[in-house]
């Protein structure tokens, strides 16, 4: 059995940055990642795309990932691509399945760098074929030959939706219309936060403004303040109905709708290990309870990158390095690079996070995401609508009992899609705050695993 000093789950900005610091300092590091190449979601495919026209269209921030990926490739960490971590035991015994079959790793410490997931935002018709997330569409953009042939409709709120529209247009695609679901922010508050943001990261702010300006200019239509979004169609998407800021109902015909309502920390891994979480009202999301190094309530687990709380790629790099420095400290090593100090990392992290309060406020998701109406599907695996949960909700039960009674959260997504909505419905039904409600308990395995992959463990004689 492989017994490294450090197992890193995820080869995105945080995981790679931590691996580089730790491996260069002489630790035995294993990095396991589900993708075939390093980079995470943000720098997906950067080795293939940098230096090409696709790379240029995706932007300079995207291409900047190449340096980190190259350093990661050369740092000496053992890297297992296309490999899924499907269970981590509290004693850190870790089950992975990849091209080499199913293996068990027993590391001394684990760094969770699993990034973010898109916020599941249920609305009527969101499960119809033809409705997909902006994140999924962006994955396609980073692969060859996958610019949508027809102009696309986008509905949502958040930097990723804007970035995607910007990238799509630069790659020769077209935005038929952008239904902006961003609620308006009180002017005084925006100005206050924007003022601070201008002082500390004017470049980023200007870039965002230019995306907005470009979108208003280049999109077929731009509709601000959209609410009551509804996907229409019986077997697949045929159109979209929405209400404008002025209260007028409108309808468009389309067979493709891309939706996005921001991102959430990937918490499943941490929660499966019993790590404490808290409600972050600013980001309208749960996040792990961490100290300044990314250490959590489990003594041998650290969390870095967006999995630690949404901060973006730049912050993820510095959080990854800080966690690695702490790991070196704990294992009696020092960083090989002279400039790699706690102080420099903290200063860089602060700079990278300067714009975050502004972004969190401006792109705060609209309230109706947390209070879908009775006809809206909550649990897409089991096709349960809010209505189907009402009786149980009235009985003041916890999320785990609700799951047992209704099957919500029992499907293949393992509660990743409905967990937050169910927690919000319970909080609303009982008049409690989100922080007082816990999402579903995470049942193993952490990720679905094929029967033969589990059976393979027995064949290898590991079941003794």
């Amino acid at each position: 059995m492989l017994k490294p000093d450090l197992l890193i789950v995820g080869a995105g900005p945080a995981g790679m940055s931590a691996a580089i610091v730790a491996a260069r300092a002489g630790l035995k590091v294993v990095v396991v990642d589900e993708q075939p190449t390093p980079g995470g979601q943000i720098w997906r495919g950067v080795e293939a795309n940098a230096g090409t026209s696709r790379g240029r269209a995706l932007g300079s921030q995207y291409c900047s990932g190449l340096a980190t990926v190259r350093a990661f490739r050369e740092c000496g960490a053992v890297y297992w691509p296309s490999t899924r971590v499907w269970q981590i035991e509290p004693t850190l015994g870790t089950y992975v399945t990849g091209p080499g079959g199913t293996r068990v790793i027993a590391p001394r410490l684990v760094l969770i760098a699993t990034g973010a997931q898109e916020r599941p935002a249920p609305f009527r018709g969101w499960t119809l074929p033809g409705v997909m997330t902006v994140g999924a569409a962006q994955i396609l953009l980073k692969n060859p030959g996958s610019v949508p042939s027809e102009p696309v409709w986008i509905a949502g709120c958040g930097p990723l939706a804007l970035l995607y529209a910007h990238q799509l247009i630069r790659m020769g695609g077209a935005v038929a219309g952008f239904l902006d679901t961003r609620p308006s922010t009180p002017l005084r508050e925006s100005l206050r936060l924007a003022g601070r943001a201008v002082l500390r990261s004017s470049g980023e702010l200007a870039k965002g403004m230019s995306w907005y300006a470009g979108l208003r200019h280049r999109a077929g239509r731009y509709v601000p303040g959209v609410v009551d979004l509804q996907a229409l169609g019986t077997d697949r998407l045929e159109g979209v109905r929405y209400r404008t800021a002025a209260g007028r109902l409108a309808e468009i015909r389309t067979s493709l709708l891309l939706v996005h309502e921001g991102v959430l920390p990937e918490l499943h891994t941490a929660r499966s290990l019993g790590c404490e979480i808290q409600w972050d009202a600013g980001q309208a999301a749960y996040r792990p309870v961490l100290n300044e190094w990314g250490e959590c309530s489990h003594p041998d687990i650290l969390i870095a990158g967006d999995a630690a709380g949404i901060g973006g790629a730049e912050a993820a790099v510095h959080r990854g390095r800080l966690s690695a420095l702490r790991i070196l400290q704990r294992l009696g090593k020092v960083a090989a690079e002279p400039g790699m100090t706690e102080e420099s990392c903290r200063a860089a992290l602060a700079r990278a996070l300067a714009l975050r309060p502004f972004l969190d406020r401006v792109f705060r998701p609209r309230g109706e995401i947390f209070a879908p109406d009775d006809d809206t599907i909550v649990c897409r695996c089991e096709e349960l609508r809010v209505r189907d949960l009402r009786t149980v909700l009235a009985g003041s039960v916890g999320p785990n009992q609700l799951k047992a009674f209704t099957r919500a959260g029992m499907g293949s997504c393992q509660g990743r899609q409905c967990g937050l909505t169910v927690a919000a419905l319970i909080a609303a039904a009982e008049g409690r705050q989100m922080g007082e409600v816990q999402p579903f308990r995470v049942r193993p395995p952490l990720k679905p695993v094929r029967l033969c992959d589990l059976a393979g463990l027995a064949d290898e004689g590991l079941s003794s």
Partner: protein
Amino acid sequence: MKAGQATTAVIGGGLHGLACALALVQRGQDVVLFERSWIGRRASGATAAGVRTLWRDPAEIGLSLEALERWYRMDALVGDDCGFWAGGQIKVAESHAEMEALAARAARTRDLGFHHEELIDTRELRRLAPMISEHCVGGLIARRDGAADPHRTIAAFRRAVEGHGAVIREGISVMALEPEAGGWRVVTDAGNWAVRHVVNAAGAWGGQVCRMVGEVIRFGYKASMVFVTERVQQAFGPVFSTVGRPLSFKQSSQGTLVVGGGIQGWADLEKGSTQVDFRALSRGAAAAQALFPAIRNVQIVRAWTGLEGKTPDLLPVIGPSARAPGVFHTFGFSGHGFELVPLVGEIIADCIMHGRSRYDIGAFDVARLLT
């Protein structure tokens, strides 16, 4: 019923506790049921929910056949069929030696006067299970057996119990049982109750309740694991087990595959915590794959560990306390109590109200476990 007073207190809100409460309240008694966490939290919520008379200990066969009849009338008992589906249960032989073991078992059962188990050959096995691996040679079947939906069963019993006016108190721990004039004082972390009878339906913690009334018994616990897959297209009718491997394999009414077989996970009885041991569970996956090679790529989406009582002889404890008049036991079902639920409640109610049951429960006397 006044708070703090009842005829009978039931300790434990699993299915056996609910079934006792139901039988008592249907017979006109005031019942209060105490559950430390929530209804169905432990073994009842974790069971693979087989309704099985097949391959039972001879001491249990009679009761299990009586209980099975009640599964066919479940709707009349609790107002819901609890998802009971009688697809049969088959114990599969993977070799001729195993087939001989099944034949010997079938003969022994017949000699005892029971006719619910039937030997089937390769052809009949293939007819019932077209996807079964070619190496399987036959089996032993109980055609009237099947499986139910555990959560629907819990919900139905709970509704029936409350519908008849019993009081269910969740989140309340029983700390002590003290004898007093005319019955027992039930000391809980939320006040005391005066009752005439106490039913111990505390599952894995049944031994601790025994200790409260001065009965120290030999008693352990099980932490059996179950996993469930995504939905599959194929239809599997019966429930399958094997002679030589740890396996119980069934398809739920949702189309998912539910695989158990008594493989043990980790548990801490004091903390009440359990944990899945995937290395051990891999034997269950290997067994399922060996029987049905076509499902090898099906995704496992959830696994869990239940926690329940286990006696040295793997038979339950059913009947009056050996030392404490007015206290009755129904616990320690050792991994196969689900099927017996609709009968044992009646038995306990009869013991309480008439001093005896019309069924022979001698083999389940707590006295056999006293130290």
